[in-house]
């Protein structure tokens, strides 16, 4: 979708190998569905049985090459000083803005498949939930994690140096402790 005024769309992409991870997962999922469909389909009446194996087959043959590619092309992200900007989705295009000051902690995660391809996912936690930037290169993920943690910390220091104009006594509120990444 076109960009809302004033804020440029994010430009950074996921690692190109991400497509392979998604293709593998999609193919595995479709195959499992196909087998399950065959298994259940024996019991079901004609039209339903047809549907039960045709759908997973279509998903396997057409979905595997198309969807991961689309998904990868749609996924964009950007980390700015004030916020994290995410844009993604095939059927539902979703753009999310997370103010940097709201980041509680950042973690990165690598599954077995991801490890073998040198990929990692970064998860950004806020008080309302978490947001995931999947399948970056290890290198990007590490830097991103460090960068977000650093920016979030900078926010805290700003807070401490500011004169306390807002009548909020809690130095204790500034989460020096829990803003550190995991």
């Amino acid at each position, binding site marked *: *979708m076109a960009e*809302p*005024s*004033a*804020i*440029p769309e*994010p*430009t950074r992409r996921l*690692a*190109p190998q991400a497509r392979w991870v998604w293709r593998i997962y999609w193919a595995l999922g479709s195959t499992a569905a196909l087998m399950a469909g065959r298994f259940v389909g024996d019991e079901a009446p004609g039209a339903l049985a047809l549907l039960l194996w045709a759908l997973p087959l279509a998903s396997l043959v057409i979905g595997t090459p198309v969807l991961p590619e689309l998904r990868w092309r749609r996924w964009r992200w*950007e*980390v*700015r*000083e*004030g*916020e994290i900007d995410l844009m993604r*989705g095939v*059927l*539902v*295009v*979703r*753009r*999310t*803005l*997370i*103010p*940097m*000051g*709201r980041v509680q902690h950042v973690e990165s995660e690598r599954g077995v498949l991801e490890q073998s391809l*040198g990929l990692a996912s970064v998860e950004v936690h*806020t*008080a*309302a*939930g978490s*947001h995931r930037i999947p399948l970056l*290169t*290890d*290198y*990007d993920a590490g*830097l*991103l994690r460090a*960068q977000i943690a650093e920016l*979030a910390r900078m*926010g*805290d220091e*700003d*807070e401490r*140096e*500011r004169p*306390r104009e807002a*009548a*909020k*006594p*809690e*130095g*204790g*509120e*500034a*989460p020096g402790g829990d*803003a550190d990444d995991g």
Partner: protein
Amino acid sequence: MGERLHPAAIAVFAVAALRDAALPALVILGVSVLGGGLDADALLRALGLAVLGTAGAAAIGTIRWATTRYGLAGDAIRLRAGWLSVKEVEIPFTRVQALDVEQGPLQRLFGVQAVHVQTGGGGAGGEIVLGALAPADVVRLQELVAGRRPQALPEQRPPVPERRLSRRMLLVAALTSGQLGVILPLLAGFSQVADDLFGDPQEGGRAVAGALPDSAGEWALAAGGLLAVAWLLAALGTVVAFAGFAVRREDDALRMRRGLLQRREVTLRVARVRAVRVVEGVLRQPFGLATLRVEVVGYAKEPAAAQTLFPLLRAADVRPLLAELLPELADDPGGLEPPPPRARRRYLLPPAAVALGAGAVAAIALELPWLLAAGLAGGAYGELRWRAAGWRLAGGRLAVRSRMLARSTVLAPARDRESHDLAQTALQRRARLAHVEVAFGKRTSARVRHLDLDVARGLWAALSRAEPTSTAHRGGARKGRGAPLSPPYAHEGRR
């Protein structure tokens, strides 16, 4: 180090131990009674077990009391508890959000109070719990914490009288608290039907088709009974939780009292309140009544009652009450901008289609064609959701209304958001519509569906400009939107 709790803590710990052991004990008891048949011998054995259990609990209580020490060391509250495995907790005064005082039946018996030291760390209950303290010790603790905490700027407010929930309103609240009561029996009913349908595909289907019409009276009776029980339980729960409810604004905190058996006094720091929800339940909206809930940082795991700002009030009183208790968040819940008229069918059609589908399946299975009318009910539900939908962003305050079952209006400063989304489904693309969703916490998310795309973009962009100068949680005022950071790795090819 430190001091012991009041000896009444022995009883408190013992009862806690008994409660923890109650379920396994009941199982053992049940097995032994059932196994041996119900005779004098079994009864004697059960009695023996009960005596043994009580003695054990008393011993555990004594040990826990003897090994628990709390103290005020330097600028922190400390707790050291445990015998075999020792737990030590230390909370600096600056991190103490509140000392919540609670008095259950047991504490009342001994004239002591339980203190929860809250840091808003996110767990349920206090991060340190002192099970029994003499009132004088509680006061001393409160004074110490209040004294050590950096003083709030004396933002002098005229003392405000406490707002109380009248007996009459408590009764009304209890009678109309049946949201759960509406859903539970329905679910039970459906699961029963499903059971009959799929438990034994051939027999069951025929049995249901044949048996349902003539046992309809029984069905209604069973459903009615379930409904009544659920209703009663919900009402009782409301009375127990909210009897004697009172709330008062005091400088930078809200002080609340509530509870019938368990008297609680809770302090809620305003800085941690992210959003207010005006919830008009299905049974309450027709009478112009609403509940006020708050989204509090780190409170997601506390029970719903702990997140209630006021259990029941007239919708017309919402604004004045908020202005008095939470002027930081007060806003008019009315006068919102609806989505464009062309969005209406998008609110109506999906629930109508789902209900029609379900109705069709049921109609075929039960041979009751009138069940197709479920489609109409679905459409009506969609219409209600459409009528509820609305939004406003004015002066940095966001107000968003929506309906699932209850009609709920989120009021919050835009800068207190945790994140915000602009989402467009494939079906919305041609109609140029989009959703906007603003998250304020684990339980509060303000969502407006099917806005005009340009309006949605405008709203989203305006939210993006509302700099999160959070009142407390963190994050100073940002100096405008920086350029995308060109990270050192931007040009560094991908391995």
